[in-house]
C-alpha cells in the first residue's frame, strides 16, 4: 500500500478534535485529547517538526496565561499561595491591579483555560503535520485554485523571512554591530523584507513561465456572474451564521438562509470551474478509510457533547472550591474512538532505504 489518506480527512479529524476541546475545560478530557493527537502524529511519523512547534506554542500559551493571572487579575478568594508586591493604581482603574495576593484557586482556574487554548493549538499542529496545508490546497476545486496559490505563496514567504532574518543577523555580527536591541531589529528589518520580496518575485516568474494562470475561453460577462454569485452566496451564509448563533434574532434568517447561501456559493464554484484549464496529477481519492477517519473524529466531538447531556457539569471542572475533575464515560469512549486512525491508516512510504541508495549512486558518480 503506498496511498496516503486524503488531506481533507486529516484536517476534518483534527478540527473535530479541536471542536471537542472547545466544549470542555475538564483537564482530564483535554489531556486525553492531547494524548490522542500526539499518539496518532507519532504513529504516522510525518513532518514531526510542525507538531513540535505547535506543542511548544501551546506550552507558551499556558505559561503566559498563568503569568498574567498571577500578575494582573483580581484573584478568586481562597488559599493564598504567595503575596507579590502590589502597585497601587488610581481609583479610575478599579478592577485592574498589578501584583498582590495569588491564590491557588485562581491559578488552577487559569490553567484550565490555558490548557483548553493549548489543546486547540496542538490539534491544529496535528493537522499541519499529518497533511501539509499545501497538500490540502491541492484538493481545492479548480475555481478556488488561484486563491489557494495566493495562500501557498504567502505561507512560503514566512519561512523565507525567517531564513533571511537569520542571515541578516549573522551579517550584522560580521560587521561588528549589535544583533539585539530595537535599533538592531529595525536596521535588519528592511534587508530582510527586500530579500523576502525578491524571492517571492522570483517564484512568481517561475510560476508564470510554467503556465500558471492560463485561462480557457470564458466570456467576461460569465466571469462577472460567477464572482457575484459567489459573493452573494457567502454573504448569505455569513448572515445565516449570525442568525443561528445570536439569540434573539428572527428564526427565519437561520437555517433556510444558510442552505440557500451555501447552495449559491457551491453553484458559483462549480460554474467557475468550467473556465479552468488545470488538471490534477494523481488526485487524492476519497474512500471508505477517509469516511472512517472523519467518523472517529466525530465520535470524539459527540462523546464530549453527549457527556454534557448525560452528566451536566462534568465538562467544566470547578476551581472554587478546587475539586477533582470528573471523568464522564461518553466523553472518554468518544475520545478513545478517535484513536482509530492510528491503527487504520496506511503508513507513508518507507523512504530511508531509497535515500541511502540514492546517495550511494550519487557518490559513485
Amino acid at each position, binding site marked *: 500500500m503506498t496511498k496516503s489518506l486524503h488531506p481533507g480527512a486529516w484536517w476534518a479529524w483534527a478540527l473535530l478534535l479541536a471542536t471537542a476541546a472547545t466544549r470542555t475545560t475538564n483537564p482530564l478530557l483535554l489531556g486525553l485529547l492531547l494524548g490522542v493527537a500526539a499518539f496518532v502524529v507519532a504513529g504516522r511519523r510525518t513532518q514531526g517538526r510542525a507538531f513540535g512547534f505547535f506543542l511548544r506554542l501551546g506550552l507558551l500559551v499556558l505559561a503566559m496565561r498563568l503569568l498574567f493571572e498571577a500578575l494582573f487579575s483580581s484573584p478568586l478568594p481562597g488559599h493564598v499561595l504567595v503575596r507579590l508586591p502590589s502597585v497601587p493604581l488610581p481609583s479610575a482603574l478599579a478592577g485592574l491591579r498589578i501584583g498582590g495576593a495569588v491564590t491557588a484557586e485562581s491559578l488552577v482556574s487559569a490553567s484550565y483555560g490555558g490548557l483548553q487554548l493549548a489543546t486547540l493549538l496542538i490539534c491544529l499542529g496535528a493537522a499541519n503535520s499529518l497533511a501539509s496545508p499545501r497538500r490540502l490546497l491541492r484538493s481545492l476545486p479548480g475555481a478556488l485554485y488561484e486563491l489557494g496559490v495566493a495562500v501557498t505563496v504567502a505561507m512560503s514567504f514566512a519561512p523565507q523571512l525567517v531564513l533571511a532574518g537569520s542571515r541578516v543577523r549573522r551579517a550584522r555580527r560580521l560587521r561588528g554591530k549589535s544583533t539585539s536591541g530595537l535599533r538592531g531589529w529595525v536596521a535588519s528589518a528592511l534587508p530582510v523584507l527586500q530579500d523576502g520580496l525578491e524571492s517571492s518575485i522570483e517564484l512568481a516568474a517561475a510560476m508564470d513561465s510554467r503556465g500558471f494562470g492560463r485561462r480557457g475561453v470564458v466570456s467576461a460577462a460569465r466571469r462577472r456572474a460567477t464572482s457575484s454569485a459567489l459573493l452573494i452566496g457567502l454573504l448569505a451564509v455569513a448572515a445565516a451564521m449570525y442568525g443561528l448563533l445570536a439569540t434573539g434574532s428572527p428564526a427565519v434568517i437561520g437555517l433556510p438562509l444558510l442552505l440557500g447561501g451555501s447552495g449559491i456559493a457551491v453553484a458559483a464554484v462549480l460554474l467557475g470551474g468550467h473556465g479552468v484549464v488545470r488538471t490534477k496529477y494523481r488526485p487524492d481519492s476519497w474512500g471508505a478509510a477517509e469516511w472512517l477517519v472523519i467518523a472517529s473524529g466525530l465520535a470524539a466531538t459527540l462523546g464530549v457533547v453527549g457527556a454534557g447531556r448525560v452528566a451536566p457539569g462534568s465538562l467544566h471542572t470547578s476551581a472554587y472550591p478546587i475539586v477533582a475533575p470528573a471523568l464522564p464515560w461518553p466523553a472518554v469512549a468518544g475520545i478513545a474512538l478517535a484513536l482509530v486512525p492510528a491503527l487504520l491508516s496506511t503508513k507513508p512510504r518507507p523512504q530511508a532505504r531509497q*535515500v541511502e541508495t*540514492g546517495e550511494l549512486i550519487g557518490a559513485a558518480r
Partner: protein
Amino acid sequence: MIRFEHVCFRYAEAETATLRDVDLDIPDGELVLVIGRTGAGKSTFLRAINGLVPHFTGGTLTGRVSVEGRDTRHNPPRELADVVGYVGQDPLSGFVTDTVEEELAYAMESLGFEAAVMRRRVEETLDLLGLSLLRDRPLVELSSGQQQRVAIGSVLTAGPRVLVLDEPTSALDPPAAEEVLAALTRLVHDLGMTVVMAEHRLERVVQYADRVLQVSTEGAVVDGSPVAAMTRAQVAPPVVELGRLAGWQPLPLSVRDARRAAAPLKERLARLGKPPQPGRNVGNVGNVVARARDLVVRYDDVVALAGVDLDVAAGEVVALMGRNGAGKSTLLASLVGLLSPARGELAVDGKQPHRLASSEIVRLVGLVPQEPADLFCAESVLDELNADGHGARAQRLLARLSPDLDLASHPRDLSEGQRLAVALALVLAAAPPLLLLDEPTRGLDYPAKALLVNVLREYADGGTAIVIATHDVELAADVATRTVVLADGEIVADGPTDEVVTASPAFAPQVAKILHPLPWLTVAQVRAGLETGAL
C-alpha cells in the same frame, strides 16, 4: 526556431538600453552559450526569449521576438510554457510544490494535460535526468546539483522544444556541475532540443557549445562560433589561454583536444624541471593566526565538523575545497565565532572567537559571506562604507577594487563583481589578520576574478592569513599556497596546492589535466617557465 528581429529593450527607469538592435536567428537543435560581463544584459536576453521580458519586468521592447513562429508580444510567458522552458538562477526559489514528483507535474497541471499523459511524462523525465530514486524526496533536502536537475525536469515535462537556463552550474561543485551538463548534452543529442544558456564558468561549458552569443555592455549581441569567440575574448578559460600561449591551431576548447596538441609543450616543460611560482608566496609564512584542535561542531543532531585539526599561518592562502555540505562554510562560521564548538579547541590570535563581542571579532577576523549583499544595510554605497567608523580607508580600498563605481548607487543595484568589491572593502578596512571568503567567485566574470586574485596575493604578501572556501579549482590553483579538502566534516587532504589538486581528478585545474603528470597548474606558471627557459 528563435528569431530576434531588430530588438531593442530598455528598463522602465534606465537611461540607456539594455539590448540594442539584436538581430539573430537560433536554429533548431543547437546548444547556444550566452557570455558577457556581469550586468551586461545576459539575463535580460534570456528572459526575452520566453516573454518574461517585457511582460513580467516592464520596460519597452521594440522589434520582434518569436519562438516557433509565436510572437512574444501577443504571448505572455504562460502561453509559451509549452514551447520554451525557462530555468532561473536559483532553482530553490522557483519551486512551487514540496516534492520532486509534484514539482515535475506542476507545469503539466497548469497546462491541463491528461492524467495518463502526466504519469507517463513524469516517469520519462525521472529516468532521463536520473532522478527516479529521489521521486518522493522533499525538494529542500536535495543537493544543489539535484535541485538544478529537478528544476530542468520541471520545465521539460511540458514538452518544450527550447530550454533557456540562467547560469545553471555557477553555484555547483565540480562533480554536480558535471551531472547537470551531462543531462543537458543528453537533451541536445538525444532529443534534439535547443538549449540557450548563460554561464560565467566558461571552462566548464564552452566545449559543449555549438555557438556563442556575446552580449556587450553597450547591449549589442555578437553571434559567432566558439573558437572565433574565444580567439577574440580578452580573458578566456585556462585551456584557451594555454592554447593561445602555445600557439596551437585550431584553438582547442576542451581539455581533450588540448591534450592531443600538448606533447611538444610537455617535453619543453619537463626539461625545465620544477615549475616557478609567480606571484605566489610559498614557504614564506609567519606565526600561526588560527588554530583548531579536534574541532567538533554540531547543528542539533547533525555533526558538521567531526574533529578537525588545522593551523593557518600569517601570509598563507588556504583553499578549502570539498562537496557542498562537506563542512566548509561551517568551518568559516566557527572561525568568525558565529557557531560555538561542541568539543575541541579553536583559537584565533589566542582568543576563542565565539566568546568575543562582535565589535572585537571584526578586528580579528573578516568574513565575506557567500552572498556579499547580506553585509549591506545602508541606502547608498557611501553610507555603507562610512557605517563602520573607518570610512576613509574603506573608500580608498574600494577606489582600487572598483574604480568606476558610483558611490551614490544603492548597494542592491550593483553587479555581482561590484558587490564583492564593496564587501571586501568593508571587511578589509578593519585590517583583520585573518580574512575568510566563502565562494567568492560565484557569478564573477574573468576580469573581476583576475582583480580578486591580485588583491588576495597582495594581502597575503602583507602578512594576512587567508582562507577561501571554494569550488573554483582554477582560483585555488591561482592563489592558494595550501589546499585542504573536507569530506563529511573531516579533513581528507591537506598539503601544498600543487600536490593536492593534481592528486585528485575532480579538483585538478585544466592546465594540470592537460599537462598531466607534470605538476604545472596555471597558465601564468607556464608563461613564466617558458620565459625563463628561453633566456
